[in-house]
Structure formats: structure tokens, C-alpha cells
């Protein structure tokens, strides 16, 4: 049973590959009905599938392919002209074949699909031609048998052999057969005949044929001669060659489970993180041991590791790459069906189908492209008469091309249709209640083009089979954005529309801009960052409750990252801010951040089931220092920004010094004593303690700052020594004043420094009082009382 499954899997993989090519060939065949090479290729697909399916007892599939084969064979012999009607039936049968194969894949049997109608139609065409003889069906397998017969003829009686003997016999025969093949091949090579990289698989033949087709008379290789002259012989040739082909291709390609590649990709991700970390440590070490000799060596190792890691990452990424042609292949067929359905004349030009993309992305872009192309056919390209009236070619052209642009792949879909009518788009949107008239007025053309992606939008007057339900383009946008991609539309009335899908090469590792807000950091995918600007807070204006700024000729709406991610405003940002201009298609938004940290390659990690779906967060990454940084979901952020009211200009005055609670006892007052000398702290404590005030002590500036940050106490004043290890009093005062809530906290310097410049520095750093040592305890006590607004009734 396992063996059967294995064979079945191989069969399915092979069949799907064959069929993928088939669609394209069939469409091409329709325009070149005389192309025998093409026809032969198509015939062989039907034949191969038939042969394999009969072996696997897939009767329905065999039945269908058998009839297809008959029909195609007739065409091949010139007994049947491929008209559009005939093609319809053939295409229908190919569809059925696909359907059957899918059923087989899912259920391991081919039941449940009714092929009789199609078979009847196939037969009708077949029979309608008069000649009902089935030439090749009988003929084709014959030579194959011939081929095997000679080796069979001298076989002993199998019935009398034990199982082991049979196995051995089979092995012997196989070996014999292989050596024969090999000998034949070598003979050919020896004879100087071009053996085209082992016998051609049907696909390869087709590919080759297509190549040669252009250059007039195809240089006929021996194997091709047989195709020309005697097709049944060709069949024999290719089937005979099959085992040899296997042996050869095994060396060149290996089928690998996608899961293994994913695992590899994950491991690489870990490696990239480790590399980032190594680089960071290297930087730290460099700083600390500047000029030491071992540094150079370390530097070398780090750069090699980072170089190799990057190469490795690219190499692994490449193993996951598939040519985008895999998706493009299905469009010629689609266009053909659509032209017949819509009665339009449309040509599809495909280029750049070799451009490679990550497998997961290739799988995802199929649907969006289908929608876009359907849309172009239905809404873009005009009817032939309209086109002629407008002085255009009767046949409309849709160009589908893919190319690399930096770290992105661009898939561009151009049509030379009527283009998008901005006013019509706006009117429709207003009519459907998607936008208000005011919004419509303020819209730029680009933004108006973006309207077609709104859910519920449709310009089609009536719902057709092809489009008009107002769902398609919305799906396009969501799908592309899911891939971190952006859509760019350009259109000119009467000339055409051009859509560019810009998609990152891979999903797992991206370039990101790291930004800081207060004490937090966030990563923004670099693909969505258009530029960053440093502005002064005066440049921020408020219009209708929203912050905006002028960026060159444009008005850019602004939102503070802290407002979106509920960041507590502890440190005052100062007069300057950084604005990260985010662009997503036509939409733009300025994101205000406190600092720009830099650009870094990050590995996207999911937040897991528990935290998934948090608005504005696309995932997380692990940084060089081992910390976790959240990745901004730009699409969601833009949505969220609409609901955020401006708070940029009103932060400094509103939340002063925290909420001052009513003091009911003396111990509600809290004062921190910061001094590195235990004795000095004790002296101060002795002086203030009689008041009943709660006292907290810190040994130096750093410790004091930590206590403040922890926020366990609400301090009413601080007594600060100037000379302290780790962080001195001035620095401490400066740091404290950065926090909004401590803006008005009285800082009292208690020091033995008496110089005037010292006092000046004290004032500059935000100290309100300056007590010089030695002092009397009464004096200290009174200064503290004054600064904390000590209520006299607590004095006992």
C-alpha cells in the first residue's frame, strides 16, 4: 500500500507539472494550429497521463485521457483542424483532467467526477470527422512492448519461482536494461550525435521546440526526426529513454520536502540573530579595549562570520525561490477564456517570467493577479468597436511583467484600455457611501485610484460573471499587504492603466528601521519607509484636531507612535522630533518618534497564539542584546492613526508631577536623600526625621534614578549631594528633569562645594536650593519644610 502511495505521489507530481505547461501550449496551439511540434507535445501529455493512470487503475481518468488522446492524434495527423470550438472542448477536457487529478490527490481515487458529457463531446468531434479508426491508441503502446519483449523472451517460468527469486530476477533485468540504455547513450555520444542532456522529457521537448520554432527550420536532432516522421516511434523512443532520464536527473535536482526548507530557514533566522548579537558585542569590546591587538583578529572573525551568514541566508533563500512564471502560466488560458466570454480581443504579453520569488509568496500572488487581470479585461480593455472608434488597435494588449528592483520584486500589469476616470471613481464612491464629498474634494488622483481597492467598490454597472461584485480588488489589496507588499496604480484616461505590485523577496527576514520612543523601541519594515525628517515641534500644526506638517509641497498628517502604542510619556521629547514618513501605495503618514536607532536586518517571529492579532503589531524580533522588539504593522497603523487625536503639543503641561495627593499625616511626605557618605545621610536623616517625613536613601545618582524609575514612592523633594561616584548630583538633576512627572520636583543640593560656578551649575541642572556643608539641622529642616509645602499642623 505504501508503495502504491509512493507511485501515486510521483504520478501526481509529474502530471501536475505536465498540465501546467499544457494550458499555455494549448492556447498557443489555437493561434498556430499547424504547429505540429506543439501538437505532439500536447498529445504526449495526454498519452503519458493515460498510461500512468491505467497502471494505477484510475479508470475514469484513463477513459477521459484516452478520448483526448484519440482526438489529438487525429489532429496530429492532419485529419482534424483545430478550430476554436474544438479547442473549447479540448480545454474543457483538460480542466476535467485537472479536476480528476485533484480528486485523486485528495482521495486517492478518481471517483465522483462525471466525465461522460465531455467524453461524448470529444467523441462527437472525433466521430464527426468521419474516420473513427483509433490509430495510435493501439499502435503507440505496441512499440513499447516490442522494446521489452526481446528481453522478456528468454525469461524462465515466473510461476515456478519463489518471491526472492522473482526479486532477484527483476533486479537483474533492471540492471541489464540500465546498462543497455547506458551503452546506447554512450554509443550515441561516441558517434558524435548531440545527446541533448539525456533524453528529453516531454516538457523539455516542448521548451526546445518553442525555442527553435522562432528560428525557422528547427535543427533536427535525431530524436526530433522520429517525432516528425513517425510519432509512434517517438513514443517508443521517449518511453524507452525514461529510465535513463531518471538516472540522469537525480543527480541534478532533488525534490525536498518544503518543511525541511522551512526548518532550514528558521535555523538561518537564528543564525542571523546570533550574528547581530556578535556584531554588537564586537562593537562593545572595541570600545572598551581600543587599540588592543586581539581586536583586529576578533574583527576579522566577526566580519567573516557575518559575511558567511549573509551568503548562507541568500543561498537558503534561493532554494526556496520559484520562477514567477509558475503563476504566469495560467494567464494565457484565462485571457483566452475571457476574450471569448466578453467578446473582446485581448492579447497577453508576458515577460520576466524567470524572475524568482519565495515559494510562499508565489503561492500567494496567484489570486491577486487573477483579480487584477480579470479587472483589466473587463473594465480596462474596451470593446473592439469602441477601440477602433478611439483610433486604437482593435486588439487590446495586457502586459504582464516581473522584474527585480532593489530588494523587491515588481510585478507590473499594464493595459492599454480606457484608463481610470477619477471623477467617476469619486462619484461612485460617494454614491456607495465609501467616502464623503469633502473627502472626495481633497483627494489627489493617486488617492482616487486607490478607491478601487475599497471593499464594496465596483464600477461595473451590472454584475457579470467576470467582475462587478466589488470584492475582487479589495482581496487584492489585503493579499498583497499581507505579503508586506504595496500596490502602485497609475492611469491615464484613454491611454491605459498600469499597476505595480511591489513585493519583498522573502517573508522571514526583512530590513527594518528601528525607532525609539521613550524607553521603548519598535521596528518598522524598511519597505514602507519613504524617508525620515527631523523637525522642530513648531513645525507641527493642528488641523481639525489632527496634527499635520508641511513636507515640501504636501501636507502630511502626523501621529505620535506613543499615542498608537499607549506609551507612557515619561521623558520629555524636547524641541525636536523625528518624523518617519510611511508610504503604502498612495497613502502617506508621518510617524513621530523620539529617536532613530538605525537600520537592521531582523528576523520576523510570531507573537504566538496568545498574543496574535494585536492591532498595529506584525510580530516581534530578537535584537542583538537579546531583548525583544516589536515590529510595526504599517497597514494597521495607518488605519489606527485615523482614530488618534492629536496630543503632540499638549503633553508638557498636562501631567505635571503626577497627581498630588492630599497629605493627611506627616509621613505622607516623602523625601529622598542622595549622598555617597553614610555619615552625611545619617546627619540629614537626624535633621529631618523629627518632622515625621518618610525618608528614602540612595548611595549615588544611579541608585537614586533607579528608585525614581521604579515609582514606588511619590517624592516631594530630594536632597542631593554633588560629589558622588557613578553619577554626580548635576547629572542626576539633569536626568530627573527629563521626566515630565518630575519637572516640578524640588531638588535641593547639599554640598561642600561653595564656589559660585558650582552654584551656577546647580541652577542650570535644575536645583532649586543650594545648601552648603556644614549646615545646622534647623536650617535643613526649614528648607525641606518650605520646599515640600509642609503643613504646619503636622508640627508637634
Amino acid at each position, binding site marked *: 500500500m505504501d508503495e502504491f502511495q509512493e507511485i501515486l505521489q510521483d504520478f501526481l507530481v509529474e502530471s501536475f507539472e505536465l498540465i501546467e505547461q499544457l494550458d499555455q501550449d494549448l492556447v498557443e496551439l489555437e493561434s498556430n494550429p499547424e504547429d505540429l511540434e506543439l501538437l505532439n507535445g500536447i498529445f504526449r501529455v495526454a498519452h503519458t497521463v493515460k498510461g500512468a493512470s491505467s497502471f494505477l487503475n484510475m479508470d475514469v481518468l484513463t477513459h477521459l485521457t484516452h478520448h483526448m488522446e484519440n482526438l489529438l492524434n487525429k489532429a496530429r495527423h492532419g485529419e482534424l483542424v483545430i478550430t476554436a470550438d474544438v479547442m473549447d472542448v479540448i480545454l474543457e477536457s483538460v480542466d476535467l483532467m485537472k479536476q480528476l487529478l485533484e480528486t485523486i490527490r485528495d482521495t486517492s481515487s478518481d471517483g465522483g467526477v462525471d466525465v461522460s458529457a465531455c467524453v461524448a463531446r470529444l467523441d462527437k468531434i472525433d466521430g464527426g470527422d468521419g474516420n473513427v479508426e483509433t490509430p495510435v491508441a493501439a499502435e503507440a503502446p505496441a512499440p513499447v512492448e516490442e522494446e521489452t519483449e526481446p528481453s522478456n523472451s528468454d525469461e524462465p517460468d515466473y510461476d515456478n519461482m519463489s518471491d526472492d527469486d522473482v526479486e532477484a530476477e527483476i533486479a537483474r533485468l533492471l540492471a541489464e536494461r540500465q546498462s543497455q540504455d547506458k551503452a546506447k547513450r554512450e554509443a550515441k555520444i561516441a558517434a558524435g550525435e548531440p545527446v541533448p542532456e539525456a533524453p528529453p522529457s516531454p516538457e523539455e521537448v516542448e521548451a526546445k521546440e518553442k525555442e527553435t520554432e522562432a528560428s525557422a527550420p528547427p535543427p533536427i536532432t535525431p530524436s526530433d526526426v522520429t517525432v516528425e516522421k513517425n510519432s509512434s516511434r517517438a513514443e517508443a523512443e521517449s518511453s524507452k529513454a525514461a529510465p535513463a532520464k531518471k538516472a540522469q536527473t537525480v543527480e541534478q535536482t532533488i525534490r525536498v520536502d518544503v518543511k525541511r526548507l522551512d526548518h532550514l530557514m528558521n535555523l538561518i533566522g537564528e543564525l542571523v540573530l546570533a550574528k547581530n548579537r556578535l556584531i554588537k558585542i564586537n562593537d562593545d569590546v572595541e570600545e572598551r579595549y581600543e587599540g588592543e591587538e586581539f581586536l583586529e583578529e576578533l574583527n576579522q572573525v566577526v566580519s567573516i562570520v557575518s559575511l558567511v551568514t549573509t551568503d548562507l541566508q541568500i543561498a537558503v533563500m534561493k532554494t526556496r525561490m520559484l520562477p514567477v512564471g509558475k503563476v504566469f502560466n495560467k494567464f494565457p488560458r484565462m485571457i483566452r477564456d475571457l476574450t471569448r466570454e466578453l467578446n473582446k480581443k485581448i492579447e497577453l504579453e508576458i515577460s520576466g517570467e524567470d524572475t524568482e520569488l519565495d515559494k510562499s509568496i508565489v503561492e500567494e500572488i496567484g489570486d491577486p493577479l487573477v483579480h487584477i487581470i480579470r479587472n483589466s479585461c473587463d473594465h480596462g480593455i474596451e470593446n473592439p468597436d469602441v477601440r477602433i472608434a478611439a483610433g486604437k488597435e482593435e486588439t487590446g494588449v495586457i502586459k504582464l511583467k516581473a522584474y527585480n528592483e532593489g530588494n523587491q520584486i515588481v510585478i507590473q500589469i499594464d493595459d492599454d484600455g480606457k484608463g481610470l476616470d477619477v471623477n467617476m471613481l469619486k462619484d461612485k464612491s460617494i454614491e456607495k457611501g465609501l467616502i464623503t464629498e469633502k473627502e472626495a474634494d481633497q483627494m489627489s488622483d493617486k488617492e482616487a485610484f486607490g478607491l478601487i481597492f475599497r471593499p464594496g467598490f465596483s464600477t461595473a454597472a451590472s454584475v457579470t460573471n467576470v467582475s462587478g461584485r466589488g470584492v475582487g480588488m479589495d482581496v487584492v489589496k489585503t493579499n498583497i499587504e499581507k505579503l508586506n507588499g504595496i500596490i502602485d496604480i497609475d492611469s491615464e484616461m484613454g491611454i491605459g492603466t498600469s499597476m505595480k505590485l511591489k513585493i519583498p523577496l522573502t517573508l522571514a527576514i526583512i530590513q527594518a528601521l528601528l525607532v525609539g520612543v521613550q524607553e*521603548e523601541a519598535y521596528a518598522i519594515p524598511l519597505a514602507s519607509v519613504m524617508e525620515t525628517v527631523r523637525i522642530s515641534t513648531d513645525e507641527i500644526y493642528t488641523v481639525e484636531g489632527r496634527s499635520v506638517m508641511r513636507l515640501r509641497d504636501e501636507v502630511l498628517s502626523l501621529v505620535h507612535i506613543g499615542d498608537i502604542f*499607549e506609551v507612557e510619556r515619561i521623558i520629555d521629547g524636547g524641541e525636536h522630533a523625528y518624523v518617519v514618513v510611511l508610504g503604502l501605495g498612495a497613502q502617506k503618514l508621518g510617524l513621530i518618534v523620539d529617536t532613530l536607532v538605525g537600520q537592521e536586518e531582523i528576523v520576523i517571529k510570531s507573537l*504566538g497564539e*496568545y*498574543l496574535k492579532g494585536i*492591532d498595529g503589531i506584525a510580530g516581534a524580533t530578537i535584537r542583538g542584546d537579546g*531583548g525583544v522588539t516589536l515590529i510595526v504593522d504599517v497597514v494597521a497603523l495607518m488605519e489606527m492613526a485615523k482614530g488618534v487625536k492629536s496630543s503632540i503639543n499638549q503633553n508638557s503641561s498636562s501631567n505635571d508631577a503626577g497627581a498630588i495627593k492630599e497629605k493627611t499625616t506627616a509621613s505622607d511626605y516623602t523625601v529622598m536623600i542622595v549622598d555617597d557618605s553614610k555619615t552625611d545621610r545619617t546627619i540629614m536623616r537626624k535633621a529631618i526625621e523629627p518632622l515625621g517625613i518618610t525618608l528614602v536613601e540612595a548611595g549615588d545618582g544611579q541608585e537614586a534614578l533607579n528608585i525614581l524609575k521604579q515609582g514606588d514612592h511619590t517624592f516631594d523633594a530630594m536632597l542631593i549631594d554633588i560629589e558622588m561616584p557613578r553619577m554626580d548630583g548635576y547629572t542626576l538633576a539633569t536626568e530627573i528633569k527629563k521626566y515630565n512627572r518630575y519637572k516640578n520636583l524640588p531638588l535641593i543640593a547639599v554640598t561642600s562645594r561653595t564656589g559660585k560656578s558650582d552654584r551656577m551649575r546647580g541652577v542650570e541642572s535644575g536645583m532649586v536650593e543650594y545648601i552648603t556643608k556644614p549646615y545646622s539641622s534647623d536650617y535643613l529642616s526649614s528648607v525641606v519644610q518650605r520646599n515640600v509645602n509642609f503643613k504646619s499642623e503636622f508640627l508637634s
Partner: protein
Amino acid sequence: MSDKLKDVINKQSAQQDHDDSLTQLDDIVQLVGFIIGDEEYAVPILSIQEIIKPFSWTRVPQVPAYVKGVFNMRGAVIPLIDLRLKFGLTEQKHNDETRFIVMKHGDEVAGFVIDRLTMALRIKKDNIGPAPDTINAEDSLIDGVGKEADRIITILKPDKLLQRDF
């Protein structure tokens, strides 16, 4: 001969003992006890991946206060949940006894902040009572109540703890 017989008997009794210990094992639940606020709680020992000392985490926006954020555990990003806040207590500063218990259920992993560990417990199944009737059994975090000599321990369901409820 008698030696052989002895051997057989010994073997048999050994087998018996083994069986006894097996049945005993079946009757005992192994738990790890910890304190949150004033109460002692416990979770099955097998649901615990590891217990670690607190370290830094990253805040995540738009989540309930009891979800402190996410932290990096050997390359995996794991949510951190404060059980004090989840159980309606006030937040407490982390101290030397605070621990993160990393629990696992299926593919779900999360770290939970607890005030302090008590001990690994072996409680007989007979000594575990059902959760109080007043609590809806389906949605409750409480699996049962274990009775030890001098105390009562609330046994929590790891799968419910790991289930997102916002």
C-alpha cells in the same frame, strides 16, 4: 531447586511491589506549588517547561494589564502574564523570590509571574476535591482543591491559563 524456587518467589514479589508502586503512582498527582498574594496555588509538574528568575521583557500595547509583554527565551518570543494582576491583586515589585514559571500546553507556551515558589507536591487524588460549585466548571481556571495536612492548595488548569481570554 529450593534456590530456584526462592528466586521465582522473589521475582514474583518484586513484581508485586512494582505493581503496587505503579498503582500508587496512579493515585498521586505531582504538582508544583507557588504563592500569589496570600494563597497557595499549584499546577501539574508536567505542564511546567522551566522556572526562571525574572528578567527584562518588552511591553506589548493594547493588551490587558496582566499581560506584561513578551520576553526572549532562547530565541523564542514568549508572552509574560502576571498572575497577581490576573487574579485581581495589585501589582507588586519583583523581588528575590519572584519567579517566571514557563508553562506549556500543546504548542502554547507562556511565562507566568508568581510571587514565590513553595515546593513540589505529591497529593493523593483522594485528597483533591472539586472546585467550589459556585464556579462555572467549564470556564474556570481552577481544576480542583488539594488538601494537605495544614493547608488548602488551589490547583489550576494549565490549558485555561494558556488560553487567551481577551
